[in-house]
């Protein structure tokens, strides 16, 4: 802190790059190193953990994208869990009825979007407390899916992995990254798309302006309500896709309350990722890894009660949240309804 009064000294681009990305780079290299080392020791288990990490992280990164679209335009979305659950259920129902997986995914996405619309209506138009609004969605989703779900409904298949030619034969990352079902590929693309839209388009600039200072944005002619509505609805659609991932890609069937807190873990992922899509992706991979390890530990012959292994992801969420929320910059207007003058 001594040097704060001095003029900034010239730094080379390389130094600047290292200062900004050094830690990330070191961590990524560390992870790659450890993975290759483990691969030498036990190829099969390592490939299983890497593939499982990607699989477990997919609903989390989608949930986090849903959350951050809302938050960037200042709408807190606690209802991700419910949007996911209802999307998962409707996708499952359509699959049971029609057997058409494409229609099923579409229905899940639309359901998520409708729930997003409901949240936007409650928080933007009715100016309800956004956390209570999200809780309403969660409880509503739990009730509706519980009532309409009947045990014994049989699905007609699930989305199958599509290997991307020779890429799928690369050791370690081949099976994990280039041999996935469609929603996982779509997730990779969505992270990039949301990042691009948020930081390199007019729409993204307006969204962030509305999240930081809605009054100023309004003065400049930005329609605050429209920006918030569209972002929250798009977010809901992405949460619906996460639901479709659960029923149509990962599990292949529906269970009551099958989201199991993923919508809330996604919020921690979003905060840990500093409200950026790429950061959220990294954070989701960390959480996915915790889940993957958990599965491996349950197979391994270790004398730890399964309940203690089962609570690892939840404890990790609490630790991450307590350690990082104070150091993350939250959009300034987050959670505050906008009143037009």
């Amino acid at each position, binding site marked *: 802190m001594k040097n704060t009064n001095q003029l900034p000294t010239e730094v080379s681009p390389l130094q600047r790059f290292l200062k900004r990305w050094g830690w990330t780079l070191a961590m990524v290299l560390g992870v790659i190193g450890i993975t290759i080392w483990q691969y030498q020791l036990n190829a099969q288990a390592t490939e299983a953990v890497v593939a499982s990490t990607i699989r477990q992280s997919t609903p989390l990164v989608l949930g986090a994208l849903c959350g951050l679209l809302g*938050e960037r335009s200042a709408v*807190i979305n*606690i209802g991700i869990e419910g949007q996911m659950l209802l999307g998962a259920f409707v996708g499952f129902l359509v699959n049971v009825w029609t057997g058409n997986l494409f229609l099923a995914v579409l229905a899940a996405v639309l359901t998520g979007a409708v729930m997003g619309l409901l949240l936007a209506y*409650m928080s933007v138009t*009715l100016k*309800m*407390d*956004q*956390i*209570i*609004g999200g*809780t*309403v969605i969660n*409880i*509503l989703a*739990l*009730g*509706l899916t*519980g*009532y*309409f779900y009947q045990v014994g409904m049989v699905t007609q298949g699930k989305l199958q992995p599509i290997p991307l030619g020779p890429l799928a034969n690369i050791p370690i990352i081949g099976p994990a990254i280039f041999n996935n079902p469609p929603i996982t590929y779509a997730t990779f693309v969505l992270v990039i798309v949301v990042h691009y839209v948020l930081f390199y388009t007019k729409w993204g600039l307006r969204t962030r302006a509305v999240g930081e200072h809605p009054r100023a944005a309004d003065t400049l002619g930005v329609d605050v309500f429209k920006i918030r509505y569209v972002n929250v609805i798009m977010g809901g659609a992405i949460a619906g896709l996460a639901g479709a991932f659960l029923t149509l890609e990962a599990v292949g069937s529906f269970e009551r309350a099958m989201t*199991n*807190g993923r919508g*809330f*873990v996604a*919020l*921690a992922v979003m*905060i840990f990722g500093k409200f950026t899509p790429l950061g959220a992706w990294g954070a989701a991979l960390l959480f996915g890894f915790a889940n993957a390890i958990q599965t491996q530990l349950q197979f391994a012959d270790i004398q730890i*009660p399964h*309940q*203690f292994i*089962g*609570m690892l992801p*939840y*404890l990790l*969420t*609490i630790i991450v*949240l*307590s*350690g990082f*929320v*104070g150091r*993350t*910059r*939250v959009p*300034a207007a*987050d*959670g*505050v309804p906008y009143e037009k003058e």
Partner: protein
Amino acid sequence: MDDQAEKEMSTSSGSWLGRLWRTIAVPLAAVLLAMLIGAILLAISGADPIKAYSALFDGAFGSMKAFGRTLAKATPLIFSGLAVAFAFKAGLFNIGAQGQLLFGALVSAVAGFMIHGLPPFLHATLALLIGASAGALYAAIPGALKAYTGAHEVITTIMLNYVAINITDYFADGPFKDTTGGNIVARTPEILDSARIPTIGNIPLGFVLAVLAAVVVWWLLWHTTLGFEIRTVGLSPHAAKYAGMKVAFTVILTMVISGFLAGAGGAIETQGIVGRYQPGFNAGLGFDGITIALLGKTHPFGIIPAALLIGAMKAGASTMQFDAGVAKEITDVIQALMLFFVTADMIVRKLIHARDDGGEKITLSGWGQQ
């Protein structure tokens, strides 16, 4: 603050009855609307709504025995509703009432079968207090995290709910497992008779305790310095800080008291109804607390009728399933709709042309604020 005070001033004018009407009009309309939409859903799924509702009513109030069942179902709900409402007053959203309730239920069961040789009244009281304290301790964790790190209580309490399920499962299936008679189900042994909270006639004693708890919470909130501090922190943490109040301490203490109430609800369920701890027997009671707290307008005396209503729906659900052939999960849907309409009160006000009651609005903190 000024706005709030002005609103309170303006509503304190007018007759007592008029004020009461303005307070209960929206919850009442919300309940009716939810029942109406529930009826439509029932009709869509091919059931007879009138038959279903009359069976529901019959199962809840049809006889003295049914009424006793409603009271028994309402008892833990009053506690979890009070727990959620109490935290709301300090601007905290305790979704973790479920986890705290589980700890109360488990620990009171353990105290109920492990402690021997105490007279009945003393044993029951001790087990209840130990169980409630377990809930209080568990709620202190998210309180402290919120106060010192800013981790939002909504996420930490939900995560702690999952942790609580795992921990209580572990104990009920491990160290405290009931091994009598070749039992293989995960559950604790039955508690001693001296730890039981009796039912007198058709009225469970636990219900009386729940009503007493509501009175104590009301007194604590509106007639003590602590209550004033809690409500000030809820309305504006900054104002509270400038007035010299210890905000962090108040946040933690509020969570502790809230957890104590939730834990007591779990303990009374164990000691009065279940007789042991068995995983899955208390599922959802803590979440119902959210609906009840909001339906009761976060007022202790509003929570009692709200809990009776939800309790009646739970008590009557089995009869409805049996007599009218309707899946009892429909009551969950109706409950969710009630929650929606009571919180989206602007919609309801438009429908019934009611004025704003000007009561205290709940303000919860976002991620960044503390």
